[in-house]
């Protein structure tokens, strides 16, 4: 199989959410000596971009997004160990988690995969994370962006406000971006609590993250 065919196979595997093929084609690319960053950009990212376009065009829905992200993650796990330190185009450090009292993992996981594939170092704190931990992790890892997901109906989104307060209290808010997500939040809530943006889905979260990094660099 040619290099071009291997790339296409990886792209298709991500688009179709086929984890086995994604793993095999990523391995083939690495075995044939392809630059890992090229494999990420032309394989994983290209596949995820198509998934995102199909989602925006309403050809795909949540199951397709989740399957695509999982296939991308499997491929990333094969490719990442081959990246030589300092060679990847590093976009920034992204600390992400689901707020305290909420155990929803999917949306947060999708965003983590997508931003990682787009060049961010991701620190995934997991679910049910207290606001203080977000601030501690952001400080410890010198985060550029913090992302907090809240999906459980009933009141957990107030935790996103607490995170904003903790970031301010830690004295780091002015140098990092803060994005919120999850179905119980929205853009108005983001403005109200002082977050920089609301990402309605993982596709938008990537766009916002890249824009935020640009703004942070220009500031």
């Amino acid at each position: 199989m040619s290099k071009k065919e291997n790339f296409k196979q990886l792209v298709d595997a991500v688009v179709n959410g086929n984890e086995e093929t994604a793993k095999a084609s990523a391995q083939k690319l690495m075995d044939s000596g392809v630059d890992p960053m090229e494999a990420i950009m032309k394989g994983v990212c290209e596949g995820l971009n198509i998934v995102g376009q199909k989602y925006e065009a309403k050809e795909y829905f949540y199951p397709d997004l989740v399957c695509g992200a999982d296939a991308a993650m499997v491929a990333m796990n094969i490719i990442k160990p081959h990246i030589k330190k300092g060679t990847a185009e590093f976009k920034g450090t992204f600390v992400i988690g689901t707020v305290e009292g909420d155990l929803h993992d999917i949306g947060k996981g999708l965003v983590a995969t997508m931003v990682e594939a787009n060049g961010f170092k991701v620190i995934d704190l997991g679910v049910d994370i207290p606001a203080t931990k977000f601030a501690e992790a952001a400080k410890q890892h010198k985060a550029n962006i913090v992302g907090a997901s809240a999906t459980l109906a009933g009141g957990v989104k107030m935790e996103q406000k607490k995170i904003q307060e903790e970031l301010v209290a830690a004295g780091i808010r002015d140098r990092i971006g803060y994005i919120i997500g999850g179905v119980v939040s929205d853009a108005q809530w983001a403005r109200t609590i002082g977050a920089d943006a609301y990402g309605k889905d993982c596709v938008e979260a990537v766009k916002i993250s890249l824009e935020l990094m640009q703004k942070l660099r220009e500031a």
Partner: protein
Amino acid sequence: MSEIPKIPEKGKAYLGDEKLVERYLSYRVGRLVNPPPWWPTFVPPQFSEEELLEIERFCQKIVDNIAKSGERLTPLERWRATRNFEELDRPFLASATFNNITAKALDCFSGSLKPGIDLYWYPKLCLKGHLAWAAAFAPDDVAPYNFSYGLDAEFGGRSKSKLVPYAAPAWVTPPIDVAHLEEDLARIHTPDVYRDGFFPPHLWLVRKMKEFMTKYGAYDVMPIHASFCAMPEAGGILAGMKEGIKLNKTNPDLYERLAKVVLPYTISLGRAIWDILDPNHDLGWCCDFPSFGILNEATKRALKYAAIVVKALPEFLTVNGFDQSAVLEYMCQNGMVSLGSIEYETPLETVKKIYTKYGKLYGMCSNEQQSAMATAPVEKNIELTKANIDTGAGPGYYFVAGTVDVWSKYENVKAVLETAKEYGKKKYEELKSKPGALGSKK
């Protein structure tokens, strides 16, 4: 209570030992972190004299509110007119509140109660919370919500859930691990809604609510709006939320096997609710699974289970969590919509257009208003309420105040409910002159 015995292979080991069988059955439900004192076997609580007086007062206030409102229709008459697409004085005002939110009425919006843990531990608080809410805000119904979404602890197996301070129990570990599929499928069971986990307190709540409201005259003028969750299309999430969302695409056979485990549960809980309540008097509602944003084979495969539930039960409303514009017409054409739905993200104009065509009821619970209730000024909440009524008004429309959450401000909740009534009346008065704009005259 915290020591959970290892669940044996189904039917083995305990045959012939009644005590152990009972013990095994009482632990068929999964593990629960922060369990109520009565878990896993619900014991109906007794009421003190003071509590009975409190409940009587709440019911009397509900009746007084209606009597003093000067409105042409009682909430019950308004609901019946809505169902029959008859001309109304204003939109029916559905609470559609979560149980935990009614704690706000009990603690005077002070934030003293931990609504999740306190109300789920002590269902009497939940009963009082709902009645106090209805007495304070005068909606057109009382809406006891499920104590559990019903797809975790009650199915047993590997399930572990956690009761959190501000919501219903949340999953930690799902009942099924796909890596141990056959073993786990043999281990889980379709819950008995009269015995397992959080269903008995839910049914107790609905039954006692009807009993008290009947005793004090409130049931004569107000319907009860009870829920039964969830639809069998959600069955995939017995394997976990993420796996569940993927299964219908990656493993349709397993998806269908899990939907078939959930199907009898949904029907039995729906029947249990309708055994207590009256479909000609009350409202029933059931949560649907959200991954139907596009119309493809997977969607069709899933929705055929909705059609089975719709056929098996008296009419009920469905709660649709995501934008289902692409699917609603197909659902209407194929018997997958019962009475109608409460929408979250499908644009109200779209729902109105499709449902009007197929004779279904519709209401909208917007996330935008949920944020506004917690943070925006009263004026913004009034504006959003008016916009909802302006867009939705018509035969089959009802207003849903379910955007209230634990952090909603008192003045905003009050403003939304009052605006829904006052502006609703004004709007419907205007529409009266347009033939058919509000339904048939009665």
